């Protein structure tokens, strides 16, 4: 067993200094018992310089997430939201989701304004910078939390008695990030005393993997994941449009045969695009000229599917000559009038895109078999990755963090060993089912709405209509999406007890609502004679959730 000095011994080591990791570090610092007693290390493989110096100016980042009202009020409660650059967030008041499987049918799911924003579009960078600043204001002299950046964990092993974990750290290759002068406010918080040429061993009572989808912590813990890639890539980019008399606070999402396309507001004149396509189409789209891509985006929201299909065929069949492709597409586009089609409310017409903001990400669905290893815990994308179409990935991670930090605080306030299974088990108990429900519902939704064929078309159209019809299911969907702010400044009483997912303001309890939903669902389903694996699955996961709720009472 390696010799590790007390200086290198930590109660908690958090791997990953991105959304989940920073949020967790911040949350733990607001917990009195943890803060008073624990020594925490936040380890980030990359450089955090950008996070340190980001000041809310400059072009929009392409990684933008919707932060639900629920998570926003939680971030307020830990004092992090106050550090958000408010010029760079955009409330989402309304959401319109639709499909257009046949010219005659446009099933639409409309989430009308609630009287308060259901979510806030926020650049991931904005959130991370706010969290880091909050961490610094909570712990200015790093007496509780140390941040170590540009240092990767390369191996982990359990001590012989199983009471601690040894972690091998190696400086990242790209460690030569010049410490920027403007980062002085933050720089002292990071420890730079390690010799970059040396590996080093530290010891932890608990290792928290906030290390993203390829989580090394998960691998070291031998935790398998369940899931599948979507053979889908998401293109993201920033869109520019003239300001309209309507506030740009509505999110739009259209289900196209190849996958959804989403328009998410950022400001009066900017929005962000997320467009899901098979990898080949994605790369073709990315190769289009800026102008053609802009037109393409506008058409993707407005053209009937039949016309779009012709373009898709082009895109998927002819990767070679880009110029040719642009030409052919323009040909098709010119042949159709842009604003004839539909009475569907459409997003503002886009004038241009930021070429440099174009990025693409592979999308996969995965769920770790367990959130707990031996003295290890997974949060955020390390534990689950979800199709972003419902905008839940980061939000699930924040909910994980909320739950885990409460669990740890309770354990510590009772003198418990925070790395022990007994003291951690409440966290997966609280989160696993909830996350699984969202994962599988989103997965099924995606499957149903992207599949082709007559039957599927039928189900797809009906699916959305049903969701709209059946108020309770819609509400469940909404509450699952965290549209209701649950955390208020005075709601500390939620700690350890109830979960913040109640149905505030709807007279019915969650169970009742769920029962209603299921009942009416089965009724409709019988009438239509639909045998849709999708909803049955959603329903049975819902039942699982119901059982969970009962357990918690």
């Amino acid at each position: 067993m390696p010799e590790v000095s007390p200086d290198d011994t930590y109660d908690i080591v958090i791997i990953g200094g991105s959304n989940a990791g920073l949020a967790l570090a911040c949350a733990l610092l607001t917990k009195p018992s943890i803060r008073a007693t624990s020594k925490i290390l936040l380890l980030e493989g990359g450089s955090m310089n950008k996070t340190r110096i980001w000041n809310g100016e400059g072009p929009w980042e392409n990684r933008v997430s919707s932060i639900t009202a629920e998570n926003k009020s939680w971030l307020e409660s830990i004092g992090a939201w106050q550090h958000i650059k408010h010029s760079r967030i955009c409330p989402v008041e309304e959401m319109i989701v639709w499909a257009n499987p046949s010219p005659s049918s446009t099933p639409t799911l409309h989430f009308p304004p609630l009287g308060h924003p259901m979510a806030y579009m926020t650049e991931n960078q904005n959130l991370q910078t706010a969290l880091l600043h909050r961490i610094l204001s909570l712990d200015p002299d790093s007496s509780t939390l140390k941040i170590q950046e540009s240092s990767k964990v390369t191996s982990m092993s359990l001590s012989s008695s199983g009471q601690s974990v040894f972690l091998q750290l190696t400086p990242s290759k790209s460690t030569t990030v010049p410490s920027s002068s403007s980062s002085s406010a933050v720089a002292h918080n990071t420890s730079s005393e390690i010799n970059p040429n040396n590996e080093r061993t530290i010891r932890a009572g608990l290792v928290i993997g906030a290390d993203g989808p390829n989580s090394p912590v998960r691998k070291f813990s031998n935790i398998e994941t369940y899931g599948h890639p979507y053979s889908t890539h998401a293109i993201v980019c920033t869109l520019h449009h003239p300001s309209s008399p309507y506030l740009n606070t509505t999110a739009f999402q259209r289900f196209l045969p190849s996958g959804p396309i989403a328009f998410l507001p950022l400001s009066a004149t900017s929005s962000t695009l997320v467009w899901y396509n098979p990898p080949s189409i994605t790369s073709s789209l990315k190769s289009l000229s800026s102008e053609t891509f802009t037109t393409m985006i506008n058409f993707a929201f407005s053209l009937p599917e039949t016309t779009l299909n012709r373009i898709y065929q082009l895109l998927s069949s002819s990767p070679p000559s880009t110029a040719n492709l642009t030409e052919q597409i323009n040909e098709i586009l010119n042949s159709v009038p842009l604003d004839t089609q539909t009475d569907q409310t459409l997003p503002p017409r886009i004038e241009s895109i930021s070429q440099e903001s174009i990025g693409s990400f592979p999308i996969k669905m995965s769920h770790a078999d367990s959130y707990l290893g031996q003295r290890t815990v997974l949060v955020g994308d390390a534990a689950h990755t979800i199709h972003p179409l419902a905008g839940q990935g980061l939000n699930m991670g924040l909910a994980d963090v909320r739950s885990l930090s409460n669990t740890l605080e309770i354990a510590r306030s009772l003198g418990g060993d925070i790395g022990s299974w007994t003291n951690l088990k409440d966290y997966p108990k609280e989160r696993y089912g909830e996350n699984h429900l969202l994962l599988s519902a989103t997965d099924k939704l995606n499957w149903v709405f992207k599949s082709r064929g007559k039957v599927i078309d039928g189900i797809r159209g009906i699916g959305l209509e049903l969701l709209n019809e059946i108020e309770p299911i819609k509400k469940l969907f909404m509450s699952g999406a965290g549209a209701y702010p649950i955390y208020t400044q005075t709601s500390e009483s939620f700690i350890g007890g109830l979960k913040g997912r109640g149905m505030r303001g709807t007279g019915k309890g969650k169970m009742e609502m769920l029962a209603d939903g299921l009942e009416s669902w089965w009724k409709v389903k019988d009438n239509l004679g639909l045998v849709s694996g999708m909803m049955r699955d959603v329903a049975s996961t819902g039942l699982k959730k119901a059982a969970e709720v009962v357990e918690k009472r």
Partner: protein
Amino acid sequence: MKEGTSLTSTSRFNISSVTILHLFYPQLGAQCKDQDTDPGLSIMSRSIQSLRNHKPSLFSSTIPSLSTPFSTQQIHSRSISTHLPTHSLNSSTSPFNTPTPPNNTYSQKTSLLSNHPNKSHITRSFQNSQSQNPTSARRNHSTSTVNPSEIAHFARLSSEWWDEKGEFGLLHRMNPIRIEYIRQKIQSSQYHHPFTSLSSEHNQQQQQFPSEHNKDLHTSPNQSTQRTQSQPLESEECEEEWTFSTRHQMKEENPGYWLSGKKILDVGCGGGLLSESLTRLGGDVLGIDASEKNIIMAKLHAQDGLFNLLSSDTSPHDIQYTGAERKGMKGNLEYKCMTAEKLRDQGKKFDLVVSMEVLEHVDQPEEFLKCLGDMVKPGGHLILSTISRTPLSRFLTITMAESILGLVSKGTHTWNKFIRPEELKRFVHSDMGGHSIWQLNSDSSDIQTDQVGSTQGMLYNPLIGKWVLMQGVEGTFSKKWNQGCNYLFHARKRREPVYENIEGHVVETVYGRF
């Protein structure tokens, strides 16, 4: 066994020494491996079983002369007659006479130790060393005589004991709630309580109009004298005034280290589960156990992890928690293989004496309780947990475990040994100084003037996989029901004793208070 020697004529229980082997349930671990997926009933029975098993030390302490190797068969055949109790509180069954049950679990474990050089120490009877034979406890500190191969053996036992998903899982799950109870009891005593605020007002008025009686403390101390002794001291601890608007904002004092500065004794510490938690909270903890095996296990466990063994070979007892030390508040942990009685005889006193799930295993609860009471400092707390003697506990321990599930052999009526909450509280009243030594509860339960301290039930809820601290008002059916199996007991010692007045009543009563 030295019969009759420990008999205390004043004991409520009034039982001569008994030589009862406590019920040992066979290990269920082998039968139901994954307790998470166990159906409720088997979890409940496991819970019972774990409670039995987790104190092998005390089981062993009740086994007389185990210096000779023994087998299950031998124990089984050791049918021990006992005196019938002359007094039984409100049960026709004697709490203390049962035939001897067999014990597979412990005998197996103990036989693993049969080659131990200090076997006689390990198996020393709690009772033997307790009263008659103080010298027998002298050879207690024998940790150093354990050789390396045995250390490996103990390490294995220790990891078994500490395996949260294993045999003792339910005990691990019980730990948080026990600490929560301690927290409630200790911290509530540090705040202004609406009632205490009232009474201190009352108190001031009294002091403005002192009566003649005040002068004679011993014969008729009235409220004001007795309050001047206890209340002002108590209010020193008060941090914040209770008001409706601030009631939610009352900050927990010293979060994470709310036991710092407190001297704590954990009697029957077993593998050290509770002791370690108390130490992490800043407590200055001494864990004692009559079983050397347990003490070695506890030490081995504490040495690894984030506990540091600071002084190595010379003094293997002092263990400090590094995290605590870092923040300038040092938690201390020390383990000793010894009996409570011996410690008491050394004159040791503690701010908090805890003994969890032990009482039901000792042969002379009356002596044991008095001994614990003696070691509580003035103003200190005594906290116990044990099992009640009710149809519910009989159902769970006897009917389910023995008859239906067949997990233990029939005829093991250890149930009779359990003590009911009201019996315990009456005993503290009648034999441990009553309200002249122990404080009132400041709640409606004070109406029971013949009982000292408060009790609260603890039930395992298999659905949520947690023990739950049950609420309820004393005297109601729900309270009676929910403390029908496992329960916790708390009593706080007065800073100074209050003496009885001429009528023979303790002065501070619920009537005097309101």
